[in-house]
């Protein structure tokens, strides 16, 4: 019933003494997540909501056997915080922070390829295995236990689609918000692979948006390797060309990729129906499961 996270996951919250860090550490614990430590430089020895705080992630690993970090560190320091978790041999690091400079993430990305840690995010809502644990800021109450895996680049869109599923009695194995930044850790292909390998996941929802080529790559991967039925949604069909997609970015990719049309047709070609509305996505999943 779970991908990447379960009730044995031992979580260290980086930035637990901050407003967001504290609030969401409490929310995670309330949901049942096993938060074993916090890590904040200069705050070692304190306690937050009954959780011991350490100065470094390494200490949290040594003292509490933490294996996963959730990062609520302000953007200027978040790149460094991700490095710290990668260098602490954790299994998983989830970076919630929005607005990390892209060049910092490029350096993180390079380090990531040299370690065994998996990174989710940044600028993401995190992930949740309903009934077991959530890592991040997702509102736990809209999720329910079940057999659908969900991967999405957008947080609030995830909630919208999950709401459509849950209201029909369709639960989820795990929902993963991978984040919408130009450089992220786990991408669609990685998440699809995890769901394909999970015996409890019987159908997959993939929510993408305009910009980049990740959805096109995911479509190619689905075509080659994924037997589990996938339904898709692409946000931004009517949006003007994304402001963040700079001039030179278009030169890198060369041709007409990155648009809603190219993503939808790539998915359709891979046998993935793409809903016009979140409700239509839920309809497709309902059909797969019936």
């Amino acid at each position, binding site marked *: 019933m779970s991908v990447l996270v379960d009730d044995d996951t031992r979580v260290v919250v980086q930035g637990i003494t901050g407003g967001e860090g504290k609030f969401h550490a409490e929310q995670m614990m309330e949901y049942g997540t096993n938060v074993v430590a916090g890590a904040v430089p200069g705050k070692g020895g304190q306690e937050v909501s009954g959780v011991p705080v350490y100065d470094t992630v390494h200490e949290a690993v040594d003292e509490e056997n933490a294996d996963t970090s959730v990062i609520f560190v302000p953007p200027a320091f978040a790149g460094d915080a991700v490095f710290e978790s990668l260098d602490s041999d954790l299994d998983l690091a989830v970076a919630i922070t929005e607005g990390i*400079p892209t060049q910092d993430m*490029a350096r993180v990305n*390079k380090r990531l390829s040299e370690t065994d840690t998996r990174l989710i995010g940044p600028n993401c809502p995190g992930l949740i295995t309903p009934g077991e644990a959530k890592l991040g800021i997702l509102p736990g109450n809209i999720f329910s236990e079940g057999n659908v895996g969900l991967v999405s680049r957008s947080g609030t869109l995830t909630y919208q689609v999950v709401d459509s599923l849950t209201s029909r009695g369709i639960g989820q194995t795990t929902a993963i918000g991978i984040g919408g930044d130009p450089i992220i850790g786990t991408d669609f292909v990685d998440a699809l692979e995890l769901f394909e390998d999970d015996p409890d996941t019987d159908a997959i929802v993939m929510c993408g948006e305009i910009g980049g080529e990740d959805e096109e790559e995911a479509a190619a991967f689905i075509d080659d390797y994924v037997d589990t039925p996938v339904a898709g949604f692409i*946000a931004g*069909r009517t*949006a003007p060309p994304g402001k963040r997609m700079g001039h*030179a970015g278009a030169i890198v990719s060369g041709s007409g990729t990155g648009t809603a049309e190219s993503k939808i047709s790539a998915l359709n070609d891979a046998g993935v129906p793409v809903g016009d*509305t979140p409700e239509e996505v839920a309809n497709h999943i309902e059909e797969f499961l019936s």
Partner: protein
Amino acid sequence: MKLHEYQAKNVFADAGIPTPASELASDVDGVVTAAEEIGYPVAVKAQVQVGGRGKAGGIKLAEDEEEAREAADSILGMDLKGYHVDRVLVEEAVDFVNELYVGITMDRGEGKPVAMVSTKGGVNIEEVAEEDPEAIAREHIDPSFGMHPYQARKAVYDAGVDQSIARDVSSVLTTLYQLWDDKDGADAEINPLMVTSDDEVIAADAVMNIDEDALFRQPELAEMEEEAAGGDELEQKADEYGFDYVRLDGNVGIIGNGAGLVMTTLDLVDHYGGQPANFLDVGGGAKAERISNALDMVFSDDNVDSVVFNIFGGITRGDEVARGINEALEQFDEIPKPVVVRLAGTNWEEGMEILNEDLVTVEQTLEDAVQRAVEYAGEVNDQ
């Protein structure tokens, strides 16, 4: 954040990239004075943030004072693709025999910076990328080490740059990468990099986009931001409020939280036969005041006939949203435009209790809310 050409040129010149002599001017006499200092012929170039300035009449050559006056007269004050031109760059007209393209950007697919060089400069390089991708040499850079000198040479030789200028072009590319790295560039480009008959290379145009998320550590560039902004009045207002906002052609105003959900709301408006007037993302965790500002923004767009508010709270709380909507609407004797609200997620029930339903139309689902807003906008148009 995109720098104006003159700002980017200053940054490039300070780093040691050769640029033509130039001066900024904002009236006809200023243009003539600058031209005389620089020496004819000069190019007079509109300083607005749009591509294709030359074709649109925003760049003119002047051989003498009379032509300089004419050029200044026609360009200053013109409307260039919706942007008012109030400043021009007067620049030494370089006598060139060849035009190259060099650029640095982040390749998001690879998660690494990429340096690009092409001998097909001076034209629409996006078209080259599409029709003849081989004509652009690309070299990926390890961001933790930076660009090795050999990589600059490799890109230059791969692109087929002439031996006589290869060393100088490599040097420009190395400097451009260093600049991009130091200044938190998103894109840094020179198109064209002109080659003179004496085998000198000169940056005839300069493009520099800065990563907005990194402005906190680029204080001198952040100071340029106000000057660089320009453009649409509503978009400037959105900048002040700190919203992600894009103005569109339709009449259904759209406010939501999270880019993906707001885009989805736009798509649904289109799906149900309406036309989105804007994209406005209030971001995560918006408090009442921010919500109220968002409504103020959308109301101040004359094209808007109805507004749909779509909030699915995670970090954002429904009660805060409801308070913000009330605050914004209670100032009016009569609500200027119908507002449809859909609240879901964190604290939505508390929000519904707070929301003044005399002022707004409440819908439970996204689909219903969008359809209602499209109907309202249609009714206004029928009148």
